[in-house]
């Protein structure tokens, strides 16, 4: 509506949320005005999802206050949030696809006459509601008949109909194609015009600039600032999200400059030509040589992980040609890649890395044992020998091979995973975010290790959100943006953080 946006509908001040050992939100302010699309920006672990969960009543705050329409409120749970007019639509649609569109919109609050559900009224009102969102579909069809985009809009329609003043869209576009995104944006604009305040989270920078009016940047649980989208150039946004001032970044890099010489005659180990996977990463070309560290740079959700997974067969490529040592291969599953000397350590340390119940020793020998098959166990004495060696070499603490790995710190778990792969003596080591969420000391040790391995002739594909790290370690840097490999740079004198940020922000090779 035409009201001037003088009073915020939602005002959060000094929000603090502490988890054991981590301050997830540290005095964060956030304001949301009626009739605006406000983007919440930040890298992984910045505190975006914590803030949203505070707002939706999933977490209770440890400090600060929340005001809705000027009144202080305590959001005790998701239902309380809904009653207060805050609705959320998540990336995965939380609807029942086996029910009809109308049922989904009115589930739990069906229009009744004398206790009996009046189906006619329900369908009519559902159709009207969707028409307001420019959506003309048959509401008596099961939801599963429609595309994900439509399902998402049904979820939005439901949210809006529950008198939402505040609508939270958490990564709604991540699985939509371009035309579907356009459709979603139309709906968002319509709602905006109706005075709904929309909090929008997306990893696609272009979308942020297309749809949002203002944005708030978080980093490491702290508020970096609130900006008008139109007044903040993309490069500066990226800089604020990643955190290092350009100057600091450069000086760090100078200090850590290491010899980047490599034999020009080195054989390529892996060559990808037009390899891609629909919905995950656009076709890309990439060559990795012996002894070379290739860094993957890009924001979260830019396709870094997706690219790395294809090269290990963790996900299957659906197009392109991949060859290892010049011979074409199809990486059907990880075992095929392992046989060719490729190792992969996932970014999801907990769910795709360690087996928490098993001991450090068992976790370390797991991949080697899997490659040998169950009938050829590694003799216990040999296991102890290998494990002791790597516990020492990587200084895994505590140095107790029989302790369940779940009791180790994140950094030490990461080292256990590195040990798991190093004992298989790979020729190409793919490591996805090996330094995320671990302490500074462990981080430096892992970086040193990567450098040493590469000097010893191992090829490394190094994936990290931290530009500084990528710059320090890589011979070659592949930059990704919006699930596309946009540029490949030789990490020579002319390349610095600014140069890469430019590419991340604009996609252009200027």
């Amino acid at each position, binding site marked *: 509506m035409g009201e001037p946006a003088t009073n915020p509908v939602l005002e959060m001040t000094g929000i603090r949320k502490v988890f054991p050992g981590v301050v997830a939100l540290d005095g964060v302010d956030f304001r949301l005005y009626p009739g605006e699309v406000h983007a919440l920006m930040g890298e992984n672990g910045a505190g975006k999802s914590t803030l949203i969960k505070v707002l939706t009543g999933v977490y209770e705050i440890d400090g600060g206050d929340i005001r809705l329409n000027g009144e202080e409120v305590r959001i005790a749970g998701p239902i309380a949030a809904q009653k207060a007019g805050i609705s959320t639509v998540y990336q995965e649609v939380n609807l029942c696809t086996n029910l009809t569109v109308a049922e989904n919109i009115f589930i739990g609050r069906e229009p009744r006459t004398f206790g009996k559900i009046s189906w006619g009224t329900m369908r009519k009102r559902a159709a009207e509601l969707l028409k307001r969102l420019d959506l003309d579909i048959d509401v008596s069809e099961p939801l599963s008949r429609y595309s994900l985009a439509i399902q998402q809009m049904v979820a939005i329609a439901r949210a809006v109909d529950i008198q939402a003043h505040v609508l939270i869209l958490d990564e709604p576009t991540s699985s939509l194609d371009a035309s579907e995104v356009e459709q979603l944006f139309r709906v968002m604009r319509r709602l905006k015009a109706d005075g709904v305040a929309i909090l929008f989270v997306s990893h696609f920078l272009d979308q942020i600039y297309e749809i949002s009016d203002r944005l708030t940047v978080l980093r490491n649980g702290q508020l970096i600032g609130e900006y008008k989208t139109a007044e903040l150039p993309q490069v500066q946004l990226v800089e604020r999200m990643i955190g290092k001032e350009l100057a600091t970044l450069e000086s760090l890099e100078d200090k850590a400059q290491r010899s980047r010489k490599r034999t020009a005659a080195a054989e390529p180990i892996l060559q990808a030509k037009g390899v891609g996977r629909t919905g995950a990463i656009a076709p890309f070309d990439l060559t990795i040589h012996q002894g070379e560290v290739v860094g993957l740079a890009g924001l979260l959700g830019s396709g870094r992980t997706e690219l790395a997974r294809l090269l*290990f067969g*963790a996900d299957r490529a659906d197009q392109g040609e991949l060859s290892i040592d010049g011979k074409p291969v199809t990486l059907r*599953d*990880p*075992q095929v890649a*392992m046989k060719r000397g490729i190792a*992969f350590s*996932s970014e999801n340390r907990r*769910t*795709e*890395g*360690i*087996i*928490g*119940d*098993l001991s450090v020793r*068992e976790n370390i*020998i*797991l*991949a080697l*044992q*899997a*490659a*040998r*098959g*169950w*009938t*050829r*166990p*590694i003799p216990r004495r040999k296991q102890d020998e290998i494990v002791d060696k790597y516990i020492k070499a990587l200084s895994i603490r505590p140095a107790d091979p029989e302790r369940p790995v779940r009791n180790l710190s994140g950094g030490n778990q990461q080292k256990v995973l590195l040990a*798991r792969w190093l004992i298989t003596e790979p020729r190409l080591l793919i490591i996805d975010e090996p330094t995320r969420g671990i302490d500074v000391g462990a981080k430096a040790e892992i970086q040193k290790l990567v450098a040493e391995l590469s000097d010893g002739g191992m090829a490394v594909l190094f994936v990290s959100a931290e530009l500084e790290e990528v710059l320090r370690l890589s011979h070659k840097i592949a930059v990704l943006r919006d699930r596309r490999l946009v540029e490949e740079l030789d990490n020579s004198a002319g390349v610095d953080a600014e140069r890469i940020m430019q590419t991340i922000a604009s996609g252009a090779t200027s």
Partner: protein
Amino acid sequence: MTILKNRLFWPAAILLALLIVNVFTSNQFITLQDGHLFGTLIDILRGSAPLVLVALGMTLVISTGGIDLSVGSVMAISGAVACLLIKDLGNQNAVGSVLLIMAVAIAVSALLGLWNGSLVAIVGIQPIIATLILMVAGRGLAQLITDGQIINVQSSPYATIATGFFLTLPVAFLIAVAAVALITVLTRRTALGLLLESVGGSPSASRLAGIRAKRLTIMVYVVSGAFSGLAGLIYSANIKSADSIYAGNLIELDAILAVVIGGTALIGGRFSILGTVLGAILIQTLQVTVVGIGVPSKATLLFKAVVVVVLCLSQSAIFREKVFGRFKPRPAVRAEVPA
């Protein structure tokens, strides 16, 4: 204190308590008679053999995060196949033929396990549903094999596996011991145990470590099938007939209970063979004790349930904390409590 923390302490303590009750309530707890051992203890060991066998297979299945509900039906089918073939023998006492027939029955059971495993690993049906199919259909299959009748056999070599003695010990007990030894060697002397625990602990992490879970999954269901088949033979040899309705009836629940008492979590991962054996013998002892102390037959199931509830509560750290923690000054002397 450390021994109290061991997960197997309470099951072992309750087993011991039940055995002591039996020393007083039974006429003969253990004696040497007619050249072999005899008494309640021996009855318990002999009677627990089928449950131990079934629970061993169940342990492996559960360690991968699965479950096998069809074990009882496989027992019935195995007994039915064996009795049908033995009945048609010219000489039911021919040792060679009877052994061959038992091998056939076990092979059929292993095939049924292969069916379960394929449904779970290849078709991707949830284990509880996949094995429910055979649980229901298998009993029908057993009745078809026996034509709805109870098939009686008069084969002394067959009866030996249930009621015979060797070196003063019951043959059924020795079979169970051999099976425990076999599974222990199979899982702990090879890398099988590690890989199973890994798959059960985290399927996605295991896949990325290069473990091909499908074959392992199929294999554990085959082992479970084969062991259930063997258990079915012992059951049927004991009553010298194939009873397709009551053979292995509800044994899946006792087997799952034995596994859980033994400290293997139903969600998969770490498993304990010793724990399962302890659990199975505990359940059998409980059954014998109920009869021994003269609980009326109508109340038997209820009595059993009460003991199981007490046992499960004793294993729950939260429960122990709540009950015992309340009467004690907070931090100090918790160590004394359970003693």
